[in-house]
């Protein structure tokens, strides 16, 4: 199948692996626990006081309680406990870097180096809940208030659900054809298999009271000033539309060089992965989760040599040790202290990349002058994303930014009256689904308070 190619031409092709190998590579990173495993694992929880896991969870899920509910044979109760704190608890169970959040601080990790598998237990409970086909929450009496939510990523969905639950009417505007944001477009396929992102959106929307408007981009189809006028409140969950550039003297625009984020989005929307081309030799530039996600998926598509080149050392990588381990054990070569210098190309197509070795001197990264060349058919850039402020210039001065993203207070209020924001687009954004969910929840609670207070004032 893997026909010999002209060595002069870059080798980018689809169908490198037989179907079953492809299926294996893209199968669930953490398969669901079997019923017996669930019981064994749940029984390990000590029901800690003011549990460290719960403190480490950005959405403060009452983890000891939900695990105890599982222990006691009430997984549906457990799901309600989870979802009442985090309506995207199902996705978070899959994509949270639990090894650096709840499970890192689990006392079983402290005591035995083996935390309770909180993420998988959470998945078990939420999966069962979703299988029932029922939505566990009911809406409060209608308030008559209308709120616009811009962006249907985790922040926007979380905000919309909470507002709907509190009795408000919500309209979600989303630029892309599908809801879910990065859950649908950005996360490695093997972390959310079987169309989970869409199934979860459906589950969430069962609360009712949420109107969907897809294909509506802020600044293009809808405008902040109009939303502020037409709705009682506006929540911006815009995400990060920009991608950082390498800023190389040459080669960055050659065919074969791509943003990892965009490539992953393509991959997520490809129904038959055997049709997605990938280079035989792939280099991914970067040190975060996008880099490892891209590299592992390239490998899973059948790329022969996949290298992650990161300009700093292993310890500085944003990808967690667990993510690094997944990459390394799946055959990705992780190389450190290599800064891109030049992308080589022939006939307009990438053939390799030259990198310069770096070193830390007096705490600073310096170049050593020594270079390394890695041959490549594809180079993916995964060196971070940036906020694009298009459309947030509401009236006059526009929305205040901080470090290039939207400035908000603790309640997720922006500088514009009646406008809240959350998720990756805010200055505190951590590029984590679970943090975005919390932002949306906090904003929703504050919007509710604000509208209720306004009502009280009006009534007086």
């Amino acid at each position, binding site marked *: 199948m893997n026909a010999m190619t002209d060595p002069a031409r870059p080798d980018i092709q689809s169908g490198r692996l037989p179907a079953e190998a492809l299926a294996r590579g893209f199968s669930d990173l953490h398969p669901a626990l079997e019923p017996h495993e669930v019981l064994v694992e749940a029984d390990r929880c000590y*029901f800690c006081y003011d549990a460290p896991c719960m403190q480490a969870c950005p959405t403060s899920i009452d983890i000891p309680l939900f695990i105890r509910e599982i222990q006691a044979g*009430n997984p549906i109760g457990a799901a309600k406990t989870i979802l009442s704190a985090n309506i995207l608890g199902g996705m978070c169970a899959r994509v949270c870097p639990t090894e650096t959040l709840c499970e890192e601080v689990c006392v079983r990790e402290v005591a035995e180096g083996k935390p309770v598998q909180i993420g998988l237990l959470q998945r078990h409970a939420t999966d069962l809940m979703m299988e029932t086909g029922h939505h566990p929450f009911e809406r409060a009496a209608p308030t008559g208030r209308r709120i616009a939510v811009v962006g249907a990523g985790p922040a926007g969905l979380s905000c919309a659900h909470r507002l709907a639950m509190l009795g408000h009417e919500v309209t979600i505007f989303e630029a892309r054809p599908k809801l879910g944001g990065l859950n649908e477009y950005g996360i490695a396929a093997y972390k959310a298999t079987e169309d989970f992102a869409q199934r979860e959106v459906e589950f969430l929307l069962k609360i009712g009271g949420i109107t969907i408007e897809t294909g509506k981009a802020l600044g293009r189809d809808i405008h902040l000033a109009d939303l502020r006028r037409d709705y009682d409140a506006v929540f911006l969950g815009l995400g990060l539309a920009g991608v950082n550039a390498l800023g190389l003297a040459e080669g960055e625009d050659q065919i074969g060089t791509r943003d990892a984020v965009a490539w992953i989005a393509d991959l997520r929307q490809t129904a038959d992965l055997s049709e997605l081309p990938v280079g035989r030799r792939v280099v991914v530039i970067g040190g975060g989760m996008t880099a490892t996600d891209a590299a592992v998926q390239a490998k899973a598509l059948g790329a022969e040599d996949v290298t992650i080149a990161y300009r700093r050392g292993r310890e500085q990588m944003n990808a967690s040790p667990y993510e690094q381990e997944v990459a390394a054990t799946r055959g990705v070569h992780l190389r450190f202290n290599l800064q891109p210098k030049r992308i080589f190309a022939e006939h307009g197509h990438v053939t390799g990349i030259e990198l310069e070795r770096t070193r830390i001197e007096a705490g600073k990264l310096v170049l050593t002058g020594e270079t390394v060349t890695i041959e490549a058919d594809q180079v993916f850039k995964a060196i971070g994303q940036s906020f694009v402020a298009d459309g947030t210039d509401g009236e006059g001065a526009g929305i205040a930014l901080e470090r290039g993203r939207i400035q908000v207070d603790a309640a997720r209020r922006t500088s514009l009256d009646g406008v809240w924001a959350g998720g990756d687009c805010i200055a505190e954004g951590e590029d984590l689904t679970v943090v975005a969910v919390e932002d949306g929840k906090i904003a929703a609670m504050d919007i509710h308070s604000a509208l209720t207070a306004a009502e009280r004032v009006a009534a007086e």
Partner: protein
Amino acid sequence: MADLTTSFLGISSPNPFWLASAPPTDKEYNVQRAFEQGWGGVVWKTLGEDPPIVNVNGPRYGAIWGPDRRLLALNNIELITDRALDTNLEEIARVKRNWPDRAMIVSLMVPCEEAPWQKILALVEQTGADGVELNFGCPHGMSERGMGSAVGQVPDYIEMVARWCKQHSKLPVIVKLTPNITDIRYPARAAKKGGADAVSLINTVSSIMSIDLDNFAPTPTIDGKGSHGGMCGPAVKPMALNMVAEIARDRETAGMPISGIGGITTWRDAAEFIALGCGNVQVCTAAMTYGFKVVKEMISGLSDWMDEKGFATIEDFRGRAAPNVTDWQYLNLNYVTKARIDQDKCISCGRCHIACEDTSHQAITSMVDGRRRFEVIDAECVGCNLCVNVCPVEDCITMEQIAGTDPRTGKPIPEEYDNWTRHPNNPMAAEKKQHAPAPVTMPDAAE
């Protein structure tokens, strides 16, 4: 959403989960925290006459643990409250005022004379408490002084004290029973005869948790010595269920409200006690092990289960299991089961095989066609259930009723119910099959 409220002896509480009279209910500070977490009521730790007793100043609690150091049972040599009576009464009054929707029962233990009971009951009434519980169960410390289980083991005393209490107070009276007795029905009957409104059971079981093999003394050890204490927790639940069932199905006491106590740890335990007829349950060990927050699981669990089963209120399932408790001789001898091993769930530990092979009926293979495999041999299986009990995987082995011919006996299995009462091997066999007495019907606990 199921309605968990209960009205036990007319005392309402938002859910059936009360804290038992024990250290967790000794002070306002603790009870306050309990109510904040959602407990439906408390039985305030037993009051006595002034001057208050003193406790030992060394370890009061012992324990046994299962694998992974999980607490199976606690044991204590603590006595009744060691705080002044006035302090307790003031706090009880204040807590009841602050939490009017929660049940406040006061446990009492004074000497076996009418005057002290009359006196203390009057004081308790003034606090606004909802009822009293007579502590006839505490098996240590007080019993040597003629109180606690020293009374609870003598039905006549129970009747006498119960009568005094009903005479001298309008408060509902619950008699708490000790399990350290030959037949629990006698003290229960005595309580009823004395006019008590309800019984609660079980109090702790006289026990020595372990012997310290380094200093050869019982634990907990005080200066090289130890005494027996009272055991509670998951280990005693089966005793408690049996005693509750005995009282629930006794013709003399049937219908008497029961507050169930004994190792209740999860919603399921509570539901079991309620299914036997209890109007509510009391908890201690689970709270002492995990803190008051455990009640949240009990509340959600009971509520979610009731929703699933379609029970709108506690009364909808209370007492449903009592009619199904019977005596051995009425069990259906024509009910034949065989074990079934789900090979997909089997993890091949082989415990079913060795338990059956060594200690039972040699009815489970260890090899089939030269491979490690565990299968039931129907021709040997007596359906005893041991393999189910020792299997580490839930629902991997189950018992299945069979019909037709029993491969073990080679005989047809009669379809109709039959029992020991007329079995040919029974030397006292009756001419006709005897049936279990008609089950006692349970009136509402609300009375």
